[in-house]
């Protein structure tokens, strides 16, 4: 299924952010086994934003992202993806998921290319095999994360940081409109963190909407447009980097309420909506 990536002005009945809203949560709660881990989440994420969700362990930051993907339960509130209620949202490939590394099975060898190729599966029919266009998209995704020279290696021989880039490439191969990443830099050595940050920075430059769950903001400050903090199962800060820095310097001041991105001048040029890496892939000719 091909979806026009750029919402046309005047498409949506309401003007402003609503038209470009990729993810919209209103008083949402997420959890497992009917027990909420985080609740009262109200966030609107527009196309082109690069949002870090940060907070202490167990504060529910990953649970939000998993909730958007249907991997944790939604236990209340409203969640809309591309303007569609999450319960009725079936265009899964518009969300690109980069999980933490430890979910993978290494029991059987698999090459970098084979793992990234999984990203094409949702686009393939039950009886069709990957064609030239699919291979081209996988090649471009590998190129983008700097692993083109490792395509034929067994993923189990790669370092933690390289592995994370394989998972980013897999998500890119499905041509998503937003990337949801769970701790992309956790457990990655310093040298690899730089490479990883470069890759994410390159994606941000191309206008990719990203939601990054992370402990380590330092590596990402170059391209983040917004920071959301979670604490004790609730969102307790939402603002841009400057406000986040200010809050750290003046911890005594009242906590920032909900901060709306469009009230602030963007910290970097607002990207053209259809210049994401996925869009570059999407523009490839049909093979």
């Amino acid at each position, binding site marked *: 299924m091909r979806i026009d990536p750029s919402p046309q002005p005047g498409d949506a009945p309401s003007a402003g952010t609503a038209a470009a809203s990729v993810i919209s949560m209103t008083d949402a709660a997420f959890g497992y086994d009917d027990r909420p881990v985080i609740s009262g989440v109200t966030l609107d994420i527009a196309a082109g934003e690069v949002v870090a969700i940060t907070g202490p362990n167990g504060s529910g930051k990953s649970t939000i992202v998993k909730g958007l*993907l*249907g*991997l944790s339960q939604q236990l209340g509130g409203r969640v809309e993806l591309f303007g569609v209620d999450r319960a009725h949202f*079936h265009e*899964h*490939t518009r*969300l690109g*998921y980069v*999980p933490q590394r430890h*979910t*993978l*099975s290494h*029991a*059987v*060898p*698999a*090459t970098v290319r*084979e*793992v990234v*190729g*999984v*990203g094409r*599966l*949702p686009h*393939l029919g*039950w*009886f069709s095999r990957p064609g030239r266009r699919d291979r081209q998209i996988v090649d471009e995704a590998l*190129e983008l994360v*700097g*692993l*083109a*020279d*490792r395509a*034929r*290696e*067994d993923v189990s*021989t*790669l*370092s933690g*940081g*390289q592995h994370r880039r394989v*998972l980013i490439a*897999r998500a890119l191969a*499905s041509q998503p409109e937003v990337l949801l990443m769970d701790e992309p830099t956790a457990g990655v*050595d*310093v*040298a*690899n963190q*730089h*490479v990883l940050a470069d890759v994410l920075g390159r994606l941000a430059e191309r206008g990719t909407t990203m939601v990054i769950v992370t402990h380590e903001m330092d590596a990402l400050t170059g391209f983040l447009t917004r920071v959301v903090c979670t604490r004790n199962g609730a969102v307790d800060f939402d603002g841009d980097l400057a406000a986040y820095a200010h809050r750290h310097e003046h911890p005594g001041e009242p906590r920032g309420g909900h901060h709306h991105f469009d009230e602030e001048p963007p910290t970097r040029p607002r990207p053209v909506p259809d210049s994401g890496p996925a869009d570059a892939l999407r523009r490839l000719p049909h093979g």
Partner: protein
Amino acid sequence: MGELLSLDFMRQALLAALLVGVAAPMVGVFLVQRQLSLIGDGMGHVALAGVAVGLLTSTSPVITALIAAVLAAVAIEWIRARGRTSGDVALAVMFYGGIALGVVLISKSPSGTPANLNGYLFGAILTTSSTDLMVFAALAAVVLVVTAVLRSRLFAVAHDEEYARAVGLPVTALNVTLAVLTAVTVVVSMRVIGLLLISALMILPNATAQLLGRSFAAQVRIAVLVGVLSAVGGVVTSYFAATPSGGTIVLFAIAAFVLAALAHGLLRRIDARAHAAAERHDHEHGPGCGHEAIVHDDHVDYLHDGHRHAPHQGHYDEHADHESASHEHTH
């Protein structure tokens, strides 16, 4: 006349061995990948209860075994999906219950001789009726086609179930399908290898392939090759040496594994001698990393302080020094 008959029969037996040799490792690779290697064994236990019911009620033991194994497959997947710790015990009850019920019921059936029981437990292809062989061949063909069609999706789910769910693959349906494919493979193989040994042909060829393969595609190719050679070699040997086919096949598969392990160990030694590891450094070489990239046969070396560093698994190897060693690079 007898010679011809037995030759004809041998042809059928070899065809059955060939199909089982291909199907068992092809299904087994996903079980190994999901670390459910012994699930096939459990299904074999339950299938024995099915065989017993068939013998007792004078219906076809193949059909009743198939029903029992498929029911067990669905139950296993249901218990597993619930992910409770008590699930482990539930599986044990089901598996031992199956084999115990099978042994008791067979002893009460009119045709329940110890030889008959042994035939199902350890395989006795040379005493199998040709109707049964036809049924097995048809079922094996179905398993092969379904596995081939679903291969990339089964790979995706086994490799990273959470991601597969996130991109909207029908994960539960694929898991149940794999369990049913395993059940059918168990029943198809019960006369060739036996219910107690079938898991070996699903797992051992894949263990061999794990040592030799470096990609999923190679893993499957090697496992199927080892499976076919073991199954066909085992059947031929069992005919001439008058040994039970199941045990003979499994011994062949184990021989292949031992040979591969020896070869693997030897190759690693040679490999270690041929490779010189570069000094450890905190820098990650890659396209655009600032170090000159030099294409070297099938890979890329990076010129690092006059040395050529080639990525090798988790580290870098020192490859022959570049002529322009004076060319200083720092980072």
